[in-house]
C-alpha cells in the first residue's frame, strides 16, 4: 500500500513541511528528537491535525484541507504503537488484545489470534493485568493488540525508546519477524541508528520538520547528509548468515563468502542478519596486515572517494560482503595514495561492533 503525505503543521516554534511517498515494507522515519517525525506519524493517524495539506492511504484520501476532508482516527484503519504501551489498565492482557476486534470490520480468526500470540510469545500473560507486566512485555502486548485490530498499515512511534538495552534487544526480533513474515506495511519512527539499520526496508531521514532524503537503509546510512551525526554517523550495512558459534564468546558469520568474526550473536546458525559497521571503525591498509590483533581483514577494492571540507574522507570499498565505507583522514588518504579501482585491505575490530548493531 502506498502512503502519500504532503502537509504543513506549525508546532512548538517550527513548521513541519513534508512530502512523502512510501513503499511497502518497514519504512523507518529517522531523525533527531524534535525533527517532526512523531508529529508526522500523528498526522497520518489523525491524532494531530495538520494546518494544511493532503494525506492519502492507498486509494483513500484521509485528510485534505482544501476539500475539508478529515477522517477521524478510528475510521482510518491504522494500527498505532505508542512509546508508552498505553494498555488499558482495567482490562486483562487478553481483553486488551481483543479490544480492536470489537470494532474491526473483518475480525481476526481464532487461528490468527493464536498465531499473533504465539509469534509474540505472550500466551502465558493472557490472564494478567497490564500493571503486572514488564516494559518489554507491555510493548509486545501493545504490538499484538495493534496487529489484531487488523490494520491496513502499522504506525510505530519510537516503540523501544522507553526500554532499557536488554528489553530493546528482546523486542527487536519481533519487529524483524513482522517484517519478514507479514505483508503489513509499517512506518516506524526512531532516532536510533541501530534500529533503523536492523529494521528498515526504506529509511526516510528527517530534520527540522523536513524530509532530508529517502533510500534503502544501506544508502541512507552511508550518506553523511542524512545520518544524524553527519560524517561521524556514516556506516555500512552488511548482509550475513550465522555460520558458527565458538565457545570463546564469538560468532562467525558468512557475508557473501567473506567470514566475519563478531561478538556472540544470539541467533541460531543459519539466521540471516544485518551487521552495521561504523565507517570510523574501519581501518585501511594497502598490504595485507600481519601481526595485528584485529580479527577481520577484508579484501576490497576502492569504488569511490569522497572528501568534504573537514579533515576526513569517506572511502567506499567493494568487498565480497558488499559495499563497505571507511572514514579516514585526508592525510592518510594522501599518504596511502589510494585511487579508485585500487585493491586494499579493510580491517574491522570484532569488539568495535556492538551487539545491538547485529540482528
Amino acid at each position, binding site marked *: 500500500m502506498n502512503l502519500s503525505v504532503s502537509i504543513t503543521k506549525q508546532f512548538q516554534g517550527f513548521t513541519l513541511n513534508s512530502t512523502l511517498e512510501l513503499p511497502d515494507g518497514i519504512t523507518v522515519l529517522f531523525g533527531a528528537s524534535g525533527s517532526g517525525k512523531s508529529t508526522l506519524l500523528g498526522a497520518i*493517524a*489523525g*491524532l494531530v491535525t495538520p494546518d494544511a495539506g493532503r494525506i492519502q492511504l492507498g486509494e483513500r484520501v484521509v485528510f485534505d484541507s482544501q476539500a475539508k476532508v478529515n477522517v*477521524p*482516527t*478510528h475510521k482510518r*484503519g*491504522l*494500527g*498505532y504503537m*505508542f512509546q*508508552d504501551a*498505553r494498555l*488499558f*489498565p*482495567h482490562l486483562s492482557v487478553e481483553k486488551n488484545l481483543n*479490544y*480492536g476486534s*470489537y*470494532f*474491526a470490520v473483518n475480525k481476526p480468526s481464532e487461528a490468527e489470534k493464536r498465531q499473533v500470540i504465539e509469534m509474540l510469545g505472550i500466551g502465558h500473560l493472557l490472564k494478567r*493485568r*497490564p*500493571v*503486572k507486566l514488564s516494559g518489554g512485555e507491555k510493548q509486545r502486548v501493545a504490538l499484538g*493488540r*495493534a496487529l489484531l*485490530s487488523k490494520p491496513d498499515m502499522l504506525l510505530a512511534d519510537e516503540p523501544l525508546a522507553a526500554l532499557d538495552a536488554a528489553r530493546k534487544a528482546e523486542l527487536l526480533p519481533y519487529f524483524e519477524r513482522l517484517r519478514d513474515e507479514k505483508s503489513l506495511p509499517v512506518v516506524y519512527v526512531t532516532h536510533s541508528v541501530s534500529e533503523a539499520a536492523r529494521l528498515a526496508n526504506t529509511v526516510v531521514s528527517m530534520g527540522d520538520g523536513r524530509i532530508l532524503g529517502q533510500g534503502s537503509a544501506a544508502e541512507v546510512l552511508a550518506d553523511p547528509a542524512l545520518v544524524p551525526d553527519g560524517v561521524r554517523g556514516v556506516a555500512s550495512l552488511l548482509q550475513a548468515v550465522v555460520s558458527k558459534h565458538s565457545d570463546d564468546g564469538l560468532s562467525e558469520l558468512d557475508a557473501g563468502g567473506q567470514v566475519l568474526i563478531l561478538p556472540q550473536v544470539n541467533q541460531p546458525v543459519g539466521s540471516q542478519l544485518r551487521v552495521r559497521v561504523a565507517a570510523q571503525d574501519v581501518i585501511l591498509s594497502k598490504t595485507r596486515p600481519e601481526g595485528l590483533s584485529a580479527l577481520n581483514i577484508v579484501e576490497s577494492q576502492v569504488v569511490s572517494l569522497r572528501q568534504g571540507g573537514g579533515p576526513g574522507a569517506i572511502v567506499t570499498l567493494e568487498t565480497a560482503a558488499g559495499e563497505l565505507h571507511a572514514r579516514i583522514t585526508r592525510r592518510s588518504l594522501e599518504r596511502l595514495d589510494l585511487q579508485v579501482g585500487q585493491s586494499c585491505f579493510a580491517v574491522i575490530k570484532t569488539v568495535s561492533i556492538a551487539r545491538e548493531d547485529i540482528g
Partner: protein
Amino acid sequence: MSWLGPQEWQAVLLSLKVAFWATALSLPVAIFTAYALARWVFYGRQALNILVHLPLVMPPVVTGYLLLVLFGTQGPLGVALEAIGLSIAFRWTGAVLAAAIMAFPLMVRAIRLSIEAVDPALEEAAATLGASRVWAFATVTLPLALPGILAGAVLGFAKAMGEFGATITFVSNIPGETQTLPSAVYAFLQVPGGESSALSLVLIAVVVATGALVASEILAQRMNRKASGE
C-alpha cells in the same frame, strides 16, 4: 417502625423518592458536563464552569426563588412544562428538580476529578484501535472513572436528601407532596411537642447519610483496586 408516625414515615419515603430521581436524572448530565469541562476546549467553558458551581455558593433560597420565577405556574418554563402535561410547581416533581440542581455541582466536581485522572492518551489508543469517541468513553474512560462517578452519585444523593432551602422556597412544605425529611424536621420544630418526631427523623437522616458514605468508600476502594489492575 411504630416509633415513626405516618407523617414522618411519609416524609422519609418522599425524601428517598426525591433523592433517587434527582440523582438518576442529573447523573447523566453531570457525567457529560464533567467530561466536557475536563476534556474539551470550547468557547464559554469558563462560563459553564461558573454556572455549574453557582448553586453551590448561592443562598439556596435564591436558587429556590429563581426556580419559582422560571418554573412556577406563571414562569415561562413552568408554562411550557404545563403544556406538555408535566406540572412541577408545588409538586414532588418540583422537589426533584430543586434537589437535582442543588446536587449537580457536587456531582460534577467529583466526576470531573476522576475523569481528569484518566490519561486521555488511553482514549487516543482506543481510537487507533477503531473505537469512536463515544465507544472510547464508554469502554475506557467510564470504567476507569467509575469510583469517582459513584462517589459523585452518592454525594449527590446525600445532598438531595438533605436539600432544604431551595425546596421549601420553590415547592413549599406540603405534607405528602413536597414535605421531605428536612422540611418535616423543620415543621416539627415549629410546633410545641414536635421534638420527639423531629428527633427520630434526625436519627434516620444521620443513619442514611453515614450508610451512604460508608457504602461509597467501600465501592470506591474496590473500584480503585480494579482500575489499578490488582
